[in-house]
């Protein structure tokens, strides 16, 4: 069945969150992480960007429910929301 108007609007919102080269790179790094979760510091270092920039992008993905954020001690970890995993992997193919 094709998407109806409501689900198309929902999906369009998710795609707006993902339609950014940096956010796609972040998703690819998190999706490929061995333990499934990644710290902001690791992402910033790998991409050569500042932590505030990375945090800004991550927040957009967390707000849409694509990523799950968890604070443990001083570190903030991000992982892919289980229910969105197959969709995200497809977008990164």
């Amino acid at each position, binding site marked *: *069945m*094709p*998407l*109806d*108007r409501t*689900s*198309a*609007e929902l*999906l*369009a919102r998710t*795609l*707006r969150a*993902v*339609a*950014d*080269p*940096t*956010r*796609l*790179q*972040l998703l*690819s*790094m*998190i*999706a*490929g*992480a*061995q*333990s499934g979760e*990644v*710290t902001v510091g*690791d*992402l910033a270092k*790998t*991409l050569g960007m500042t932590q505030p920039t990375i945090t800004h992008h991550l927040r957009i993905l967390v707000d849409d429910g694509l990523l799950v954020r968890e604070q443990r001690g001083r570190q903030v970890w991000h992982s892919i929301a289980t229910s969105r995993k*197959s*969709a995200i992997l*497809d*977008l*990164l*193919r």
Partner: protein
Amino acid sequence: MSKVPRTIGRPLDPEAARARAHQISALTDPVTLRLLSLIAATPESPHSQNWLASALVLPAATVSGALLDLAAVGLLASDLRGQYQLTADAWVCFGRLLASPGPSETEQKSAVTAPTQTDAVPGVIARIVDDLSYRFSSTFSQETVARYVTESYSLLAERAQIVRFLPSLTAKFATDRLSALATVEGLVLRGTPEVLFVCVQNAGRSQMAAAILRQLAGDTVHVRTAGSAPAAAVNSIVVEALDEIGIPLATEFPKPLTEEVVQAADYVITMGCGDACPIYPGRRYMDWDLEDPVGKSLEEVRLIRDEISARVHALLAEMGPGVQPAIR
């Protein structure tokens, strides 16, 4: 601090990330999304602009703009009749998203199993593996090509709702992935363009052009031929005319024109069969208006041969030494 290095995924290459973001941006409008979803869900319907506009109850101008946007980012391709289908990229990246959420279990199941029901599947795959192994022979082993083709096939078979275009989508998708892999690994693939000559019988004009180009370009160009209605054997006067100028026509035999062979080509040169040749974006198409050597005397065939030779020289000059195949 832990000494164990935390392993994170390799980031998408910046160029690829930009291209994908661009594709996704085209789908951030619900109208575009519904359009692509409708095309995906109705594989057997005629996807003309008018049909789509009335199915979605949208103005034709809106639909036409959205179709062009989607084609521009490589998510849709139109055929000769102006009808649209999803590209391999569109199926693989967006196919599952485009299906209405929460399909019943039976629906999901049939979507997955339908393509594998056909007995022709392994044959088609083997055929594509052969074609691509030839094309990538200087770059990848046949095992690598086979692995990519099989994987591409299953990615598409799980998502695409039609079986009809599955082989050509598979070939296209596997070609793109192998090319990308070659580029990432810095393997020299570009610079070996693939030229396809097509005539009606694949017994005269296309064979002459191919033999001359092979002679001139050697390994720097991959040359193939096909016919829209292939004859049983190559015309013997053609063999003679080529032999006169020292060009061998090795063990060539007339072959049918297939979608795969056109998709593998960077340059497609048609000779009196333009309509039968499918058009895919990104290839350079040329039509050479040449007489058919069938039933002609040796003298007449010589004239045709010389004209073909002149055109092949011009083609080679156009391709230039640093030519890049237009496979993307």
